[in-house]
């Protein structure tokens, strides 16, 4: 009787909640597990999806080095890096002005917000036409400006939220203490928002790194970024499932690693300071 009591799970909200967490956890982890297994399977082994124990092969990983995944990774990193650098410099200056001086008033805030909900299909066709005219289609340059069009508003929006959170008094005190506006900005304000700037930079990087739509249309061939390259495993010579799994892991692992550092700050950033965390 007493042992029976010990083993009988009680149906409480806490138990239900933990059960839900376990289910969610499994549903998140298992697909990644499938990817890792798939990247070490041969073509024949891939035909048996339930196969868990097998002789791992490095063939798929060799294949992705041969098929230009490395170049695409490098290209994606470059595009994301350049986009983010520009966005952070330009965005933080603008965000500071919007936050402190209400520059541009509601128009500025609304434009930055609206730019984030613009369907990419609206902007992509002009970009395509212009890149044709400048003979830049299918180069990384054709992808840079379109990526700025969505990374810059997001980063600026993030930073407005973080600048809003810096108390005005701190800055005014610095001015009273004899620092100039620029010095106050550099020595007092920037250090306070630097975690926010870091989070915005990482988030902007992830957005650019993950983009398929613009890259697919503007640089589908020789200058394919990583997402476009991954998509190409789907059609080129049938499906190369094993190599596709390996390429996906290349795209996913760095981003997951970076994301661990910014999760808490993301909330304030995404909501533009509306939700504090």
């Amino acid at each position, binding site marked *: 009787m007493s042992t029976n009591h010990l083993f009988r799970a009680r149906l409480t909200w806490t138990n239900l909640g933990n059960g839900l967490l376990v289910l*969610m956890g499994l549903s998140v982890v298992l697909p990644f597990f499938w990817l890792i297994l798939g990247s070490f399977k041969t073509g024949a082994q891939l035909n048996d999806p339930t196969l868990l124990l097998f002789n791992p092969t490095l063939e798929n990983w060799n294949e992705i080095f041969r098929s230009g995944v490395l170049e695409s990774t490098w290209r994606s990193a470059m595009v994301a890096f350049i986009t983010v650098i520009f966005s952070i410099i330009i965005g933080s*200056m603008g965000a500071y002005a919007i936050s402190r001086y209400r520059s541009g008033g509601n128009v500025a805030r609304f434009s930055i917000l609206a730019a984030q909900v613009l369907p990419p299909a609206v902007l992509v*066709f002009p970009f*395509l036409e212009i890149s044709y005219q400048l003979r830049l289609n299918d180069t990384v340059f054709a992808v840079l400006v379109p990526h700025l069009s969505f990374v810059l508003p997001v980063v600026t929006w993030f930073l407005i939220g973080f600048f809003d959170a810096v108390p005005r008094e701190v800055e005014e005190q610095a001015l009273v203490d004899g620092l100039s506006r620029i010095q106050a900005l550099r020595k007092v304000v920037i250090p306070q928002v630097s975690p926010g700037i870091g989070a915005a930079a990482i988030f902007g990087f992830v957005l650019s790194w993950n983009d398929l739509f613009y890259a697919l249309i503007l640089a589908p061939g020789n200058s394919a970024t990583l997402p476009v390259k*991954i998509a190409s*495993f789907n059609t080129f010579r049938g499906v190369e499932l094993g190599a596709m799994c390996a390429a996906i892991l290349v795209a996913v692992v760095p981003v997951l690693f970076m994301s661990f550092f910014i999760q808490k700050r993301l909330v304030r950033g995404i909501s533009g300071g509306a939700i504090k965390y």
Partner: protein
Amino acid sequence: MYEGVQMSLRLRLMLPLVVVFSASVGYPLLHAFYLSLTNYKITSRGDTKIVWLQQYIATLQDPNYWSSLRVTAVFVILAVFIEFWLGLFVALALQKQRKIKDLTRSFLLAPMFVTPIAIGLMFRFILNQQLGVIPTFLAKFGLAYDFFGPGKALFTIVLIDVWQWTPFMVLLLLAGLEGLSKSPFEAAKIDGASALFTFRKITLPMLMPVISVAILIRSLDAMKIFEYVFAITRGGPAIETMTIQYYTYQTGIQFYRLGLASAMSYLMLIIVMIIAVILFRRVEATRKNQ
């Protein structure tokens, strides 16, 4: 004098943003409007003429356009609905969790950082009828379910979206929950209120501003759905999963009709902006009621 110096600093800070924003968003937006008034085709750029509203009329008379609007609406409503409720319960469960908190959170949030094309392709093969783990597993129990078959594909796409974006809801709602003041909950506990009562009468109303922000952001983002369709169904079976963004892509890129595609996307832009303004007002209203 001081005022003048300050003005120039403001201007210097804003100028780069205004210039780059205008060049990368403003100009293409105007250019797209111009394109939508022409019969521009990539294959015959020489004889581009201004046709005024003809492309808009053609779009509105196209039954496939209306169908893709419907498909997108069904997708957004279903996906956001499931993501919200699932996300809310997961957030509540996470809030109660004591041990290995940060690790669980990091893991559960992982899907939202992965490039959507990778997730689309991954599930395409996990759910594939011949090669997929899940159908193979189901077959062992004598069950056959074609995830991408007629009448089912759109719902499968919804589930993939739920897999990727429920974490986003969890992130925002959890932040909201942890920001709530503790006293109403303590008072309810002393009064002996049930968990369900506390949830309905205290948690939900107090969380409302965060809920509306989360739903606003997620709905507007879900309207851009493209990658899963591109990776898996390409609009099929028939046009069951032909979303607006995919249909516009097809018209502009596969059929080279940039003029028509621009008109389609401009109409979509108007719809998105109307929905954004309506939802945004509701967000502001709930915030003021607090």
